[in-house]
């Protein structure tokens, strides 16, 4: 259970207008690694925006997750350049190694595996992101090593 004041602190950074909704939700996402239900409710109260609308936004935008994610988020870029250069194999390897499907979180809550449609680093394809850090020219056989190395630091 998150204290209401934590949400308020984030909401206060922004103008009290509907324009700020998405930005506030993204800050929730960064802070808690997901958008908590109480956060949506609090936001609805403070900004006087229907809860149903905020919930709809939460389900629409991929950057937001309504369920808690793992401590580390691994993103496989599935942009066109990455696709051609082997992103599907990398994704498969990760699904196999982590034992989760895409958008899934490992049972120990350590990793969440996600796909992202192009991070704009196509010249370094295929790209894998570990906690927002870019790794270019990854290979299916090496990707787990990168992740372990990065997350054990």
């Amino acid at each position, binding site marked *: 259970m998150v204290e209401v004041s934590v949400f308020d602190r984030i909401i206060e950074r922004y103008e009290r207008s509907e324009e700020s909704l998405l930005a506030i939700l993204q800050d929730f996402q960064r802070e808690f690694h997901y958008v908590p*239900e109480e956060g*949506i409710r609090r936001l609805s109260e403070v900004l006087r925006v229907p*809860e*149903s609308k*905020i*919930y709809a936004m939460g389900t629409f935008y991929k950057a937001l997750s309504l369920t808690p994610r793992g401590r580390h988020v691994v993103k496989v870029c599935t942009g066109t350049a990455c696709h051609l250069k082997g992103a599907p194999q990398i994704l498969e390897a990760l699904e196999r190694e982590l034992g989760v499907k895409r958008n899934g979180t490992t049972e120990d809550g350590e990793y969440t595996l996600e796909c992202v449609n192009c991070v704009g680093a196509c010249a370094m394809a295929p790209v894998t992101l570990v906690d927002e850090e870019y790794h270019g020219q990854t290979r299916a056989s090496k990707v787990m090593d990168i992740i372990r190395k990065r997350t054990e630091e």
Partner: protein
Amino acid sequence: MEKISVIIDGKTLHAVKDRCVLQVARENGIYIPSLCYNSEVESSGGSCRVCLVEAHQGGRMRLVTSCNYPVRAGLEVKTDTPLVRRIRRGVLELLLARVPDSEVIREMAAREGVTEVRFRRDEGENERYKCIACALCTHVCAEVVGVHAIAMTERGADKKPATPYHKPSEVCIGCGACAYACPTGAITMKETDGVRRIWGKDFPMVRCSVCGAPHIPEAQVDWIVKRTGKDRAFFDKCPDHR
């Protein structure tokens, strides 16, 4: 209200500028099928694509949804060309694949000559059994009733109207306007022993102090009283005994 003339199916018609093609056609007895549009709900329309027609203007033709395309001077509309029929049939086939159990869609598709689906059908999940995700219910809830209990959630093929977290809504007043507006009858509302059930929530009804008949959800009375300042006692009796 500026009046202009437009041509629909070869007939020159006089119409109020910026009214939608569908309205003008209907007023003039030209049938265009439609599902997601309700003339009394401002932001409805544009999603089911059943009412597509050819709009010729300024030497250029495109298919537009007649429910939200405004009539302007010099517009010519054709509602029954091979292109319109082909695309309409395609749309209906997709809808039929989505909600094979909806009588409304079955009948409408049959009228256009679509009786079989060549694509993979959706398994009839309960939730979207007959729902074509046209969003009319959510527009009604927001604009006509004003409570915003439901909204269109998810995206793509999973899009559906829902309450937040699919839990019983805190703001829903059980008025049933969404169920009434739904073009395919996808929203179920049931009433048993003075309790109305809709969107997974039970709404106790006010019983008439004279005849005892349940006639309006308590939550709806609260809402009306709050919004209009109407005397609560007014709802103690059913319309028959006021």
